């Protein structure tokens, strides 16, 4: 391996450290109008009247969109008005959109729009939503258009219900000598990407709709605008430049639709819709909350025999992507353990909260917290080492998943090996508790996680390679550079296959949906796998074409040719050959005759063998492979104040193959940091009207410099045979295990079971107070 595994400097590095890298909001023209959203100040209220008269008097106002019945939107269920009509269902929901020459004018006008509300009873948690007499968030749930595998229950707040029925529960419980059961909860929170979402739209005289957006899913923008509004697919052209962090939050389609409607309203002029931080936190989709109950039974050896799980996901006011998150949470509900008898009900609940979107890990950090806390309760009751309990139950080849997929050495990572490595680098055997003095104590907690990516069964990816006359290559894929470095890794994959210098490969960073092959979405750690396969496919196509031209020019059979170092040459006599610059644009004979023409490599990939789930049992193959990881967190806990510091955080992930070492380490450490923040501090605080009380970065607090722990990262490499060079997804690991490991460490440190997030000192104090 020449290039694979090396810490190749990221292709966009210089742009990013010089301020020249451009993001959606950095593109602005004089003619571009600005949109301002008027948002709901309440969680649930009837819209009695909207008075726009004063707003229209503000100079520079071009349009005010309010009260119109546009087609309903939503990915799994069409339940969401683009702009609220009749009633608002969450704090921050858009009730009107003003389009004006400048952002100040638009805001001034927006402030003058008078909306009269009549308060409605608020559904403030998924548990409340689940009660029989709960107020309804959607009265006409039964009438909405929906996808086939969404299962809403009319006249309730259930947006979907996913069932997992595996094995025989009666048998499982009868084999269980020890049973533990616990309930857990945490409220929604936010992705808090540093770039707030932004979209622009312009409609050209020929009907072309030009959109630019900070999105993980530009191809989805194209598809959905076509679906919702009947526009020709080919006329919708979506551009995505660099994206300033996404973490799942930029997979849903929202501002693009507002920009499109706004542009349409002003005769196609370009309009920009930009989120303020406050809007980005409450108006746009957030990180899902969860109320859950977990019951585990184990025999006297600690082997888990039965698991019964209920998830009530806080999907918020609209189901959108929360339905997929709910399904994903169900299919891996047990965590990475071999359990024969599983019963899970995973409900996506409507509430009057901001609506949910995927969050890095796609339900798996959430489900892992509830499972991993229960695992520790089980270990405690069994009087067993918690890491040992995980080891003996670790999922292994030959076992089946909750949806009954038979696992093997390729489609499953090696969890026992990850656990062993955590034991070693986290120094677990020195014991989890270290007394410092009568006030301070150091405690370690552990956890595990797994994940399969439940993306569309027919999700596509593609790659195009073209040549420059100097023999260098251009690589184009539909993967968005959201910060993960995937575009650089794809160049490494290409360089490795062509055995060439990665510096001679130019990568197109910006994506546009008109000229680049579709890549499903830049989500679910699928960029490297799917686009990587497409790149390999395109590389083979390039090799074949190079050899064809060279075979003719060199008067040698194709099979005798080899490609390396930007040359195609005779295997047995490398001196005889041609440089890419002599064949990339066809070969020209000394007399002027030319053959071949420019080489354009094309590659594609589509996932295989994925199925929908059986609605009654959940049986089916939801994703291509299961990656695994094991974790540790060490805290220093103050027994007087209930405050603590995260001293160390450890992740060992089976990455299949390290493609770019520093990039991979960065992904894992960054994910750990985000996981620690989610576990220890981040949450929305709601009042009784369903209002989010902390929609700013001074009250909603991501981790800052120096608040991070020391990171310990280890890799296990069990190749996934059908993946480029065996690599497995890595961007979401690191995060998933942090809430569980932190909760486990603190529960030991404080001597009380901590079942809620975030784990702030006040929560621990309350739990202790509740005890006495």
């Amino acid at each position: 391996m020449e290039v694979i595994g090396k810490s190749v400097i990221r292709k966009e590095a210089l742009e990013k450290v010089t301020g020249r890298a451009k993001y959606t909001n950095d593109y602005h023209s004089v003619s571009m109008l600005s949109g301002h959203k008027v948002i709901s100040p309440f969680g649930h209220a009837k819209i009695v009247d909207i008075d726009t008269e004063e707003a229209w008097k503000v100079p520079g106002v071009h349009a005010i969109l309010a009260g119109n019945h546009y087609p309903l939107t939503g990915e799994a269920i069409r339940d969401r008005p683009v702009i609220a009509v009749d009633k608002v269902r969450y704090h921050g929901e858009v009730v009107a959109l003003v389009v004006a020459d400048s952002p100040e004018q638009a805001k001034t006008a927006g402030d003058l729009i008078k909306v009269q509300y009549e308060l409605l009873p608020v559904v403030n948690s998924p548990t409340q939503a689940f009660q029989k007499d709960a107020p309804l968030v959607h009265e006409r749930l039964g009438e909405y258009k929906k996808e086939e595998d969404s299962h809403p229950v009319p006249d309730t707040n259930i947006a979907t219900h996913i069932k997992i029925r595996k094995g025989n529960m009666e048998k499982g419980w009868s084999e269980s000598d020890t049973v533990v059961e616990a309930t857990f909860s945490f409220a929604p929170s936010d992705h808090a990407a540093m770039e707030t979402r932004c979209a622009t739209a312009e409609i050209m005289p020929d009907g072309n709709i030009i959109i630019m957006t900070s999105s993980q899913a530009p191809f989805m923008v194209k598809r959905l605008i076509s679906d919702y509004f009947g526009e020709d697919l080919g006329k919708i052209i979506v551009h995505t430049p660099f994206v300033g962090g996404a973490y799942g939050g930029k997979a849903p389609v929202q501002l693009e639709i507002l920009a499109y409607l706004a542009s349409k309203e002003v005769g196609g002029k370009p309009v920009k819709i930009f989120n303020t931080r406050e809007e980005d936190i409450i108006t746009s989709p957030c990180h899902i909350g969860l109320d859950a109950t977990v019951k585990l039974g184990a025999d006297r050896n600690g082997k888990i025999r039965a698991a019964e799980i209920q998830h009530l996901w806080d999907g918020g006011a609209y189901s959108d992507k929360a339905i997929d998150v709910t399904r994903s949470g169900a299919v891996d509900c047990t965590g990475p353990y071999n359990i024969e008898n599983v019963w899970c009900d995973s409900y996506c609940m409507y509430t009057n909260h901001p609506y949910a979107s995927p969050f890095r890990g796609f339900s798996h950090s959430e489900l892992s917290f509830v499972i991993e806390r229960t695992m520790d309760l089980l270990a405690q009751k069994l009087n067993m080492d918690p890491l040992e309990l995980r080891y003996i139950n670790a999922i292994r080849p030959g076992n089946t998943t909750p949806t009954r997929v038979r696992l093997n050495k390729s489609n499953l990572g090696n969890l026992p090996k990850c656990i062993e490595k955590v034991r070693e680098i986290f120094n677990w055997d020195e014991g989890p508790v270290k007394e410092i003095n009568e006030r301070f104590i150091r405690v370690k907690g552990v956890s595990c996680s797994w994940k399969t990516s439940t993306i569309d069964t027919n999700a596509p990816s593609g790659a195009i390679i073209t040549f420059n006359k100097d023999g260098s290559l251009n690589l184009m894929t539909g993967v968005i550079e959201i910060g993960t470095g995937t575009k650089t890794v794809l160049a490494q994959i290409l360089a490795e296959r062509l055995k060439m210098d990665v510096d001679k490969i130019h990568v197109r960073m910006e994506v546009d949906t008109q000229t680049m092959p579709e890549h499903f979405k830049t989500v679910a750690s699928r960029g490297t796998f799917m686009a990587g396969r497409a790149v390999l496919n395109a590389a083979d196509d390039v090799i074949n074409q190079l050899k064809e031209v060279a075979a003719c020019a060199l008067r040698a059979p194709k099979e005798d040719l080899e490609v390396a170092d930007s040359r195609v040459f005779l295997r047995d006599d490398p001196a005889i050959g041609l440089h890419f610059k002599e064949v990339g644009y066809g070969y020209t004979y000394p007399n002027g005759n030319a053959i071949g023409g420019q080489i354009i490599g094309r590659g594609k990939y589509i996932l295989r063998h994925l199925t929908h789930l059986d609605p009654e049992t959940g049986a089916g193959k939801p994703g291509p492979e299961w990656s695994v990881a094991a974790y540790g967190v060490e805290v220093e806990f103050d027994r007087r104040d209930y405050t603590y510091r995260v001293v160390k955080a450890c992740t060992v992930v089976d990455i299949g193959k390290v493609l770019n070492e520093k990039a991979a380490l960065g992904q894992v450490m960054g994910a750990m940091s985000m996981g620690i923040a989610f576990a220890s501090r981040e949450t929305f605080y709601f009042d009784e009207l369903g209002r989010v009380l902390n929609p700013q970065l001074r009250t909603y607090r991501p981790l800052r410099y120096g608040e991070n722990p020391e990171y310990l990262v280890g890799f296990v490499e069990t190749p996934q045979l059908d993946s480029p060079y065996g690599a497995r997804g890595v961007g979401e690991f690191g995060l998933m295990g942090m809430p569980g490991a932190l909760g486990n460490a603190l529960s030991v440190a404080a001597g009380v079971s901590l079942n809620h997030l975030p784990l702030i000192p006040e929560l621990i104090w309350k739990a202790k107070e509740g005890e006495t």
Partner: protein
Amino acid sequence: MLPFDFDYYKPETLKEAVDLFQYLDQQGNQPMFFSGGTELITLGRIDLAYTDAVIDIKDIAESKVMKVSGDHLILGSTLSLTEIEEANLFPLLTKTASEIADHTARGKITLGGNICAQIFYREAVLPFLLADSQVLIIGPEGKKVIPINEIFHEQLRLKRGEFLVQLATDSRFITAPFISIKRRQQWDTGYPLITIAALKTGQELRVAISGLCPFPFRSKEVESVLNNIEMSLEARVQGAIELVPDPILDDVEGSAEYRLFVLQNLFYDVLARLER
């Protein structure tokens, strides 16, 4: 982005600033003195602050003073918190100020701006309350010098058209033993759960607190209980807690009950540090 427009003036003298305010006020404009201006900018954009005219006082010589004059340290109101920290002429103030907002923001936030802030923590005032400092105020009636403890009740009680120019602090307080602790919900920068500053002069302990109530305060009653060495440590702490003013904050940073729990331990820490 501020949606409203305003006039911007930058007077060079105190008199000019005061006259300008009066003039604009009489014209029916809504003028505002401005030094760091971070509150106008951040609260203005969410419709919680407004002005028709900004009078930027930060280039007025008197308000930029930082000097020792005889027994007193004089600090101008438009010094940025960073300038004060870097000079470090009043260690208790350095420590307390260095926990406000974050380092870069403190390069813009000024001493006077923090003390006169709409956001109610106003932690920079705590050291001055403890040190019985004097404040120099200018207004339509001219200059006046007043003990801070006479004019600061929850906030600096300025009359319309007045602003804070300087604070003068006796050097014996500047060298006195002190402690300043800031406790936050779960992080190292930004708003407090509780900030407590304490100073010892002779055998007398003084404490001032921000973040407990929707205003900073120094309470003689609390101090007298804490100083009552006839009582047991526990009784003094409990007694002090019973005497803190109402209301106790109950918000996203923490509940009222939890704040009292935190306060109790902070009192123990203050006593342990300063009562040796």
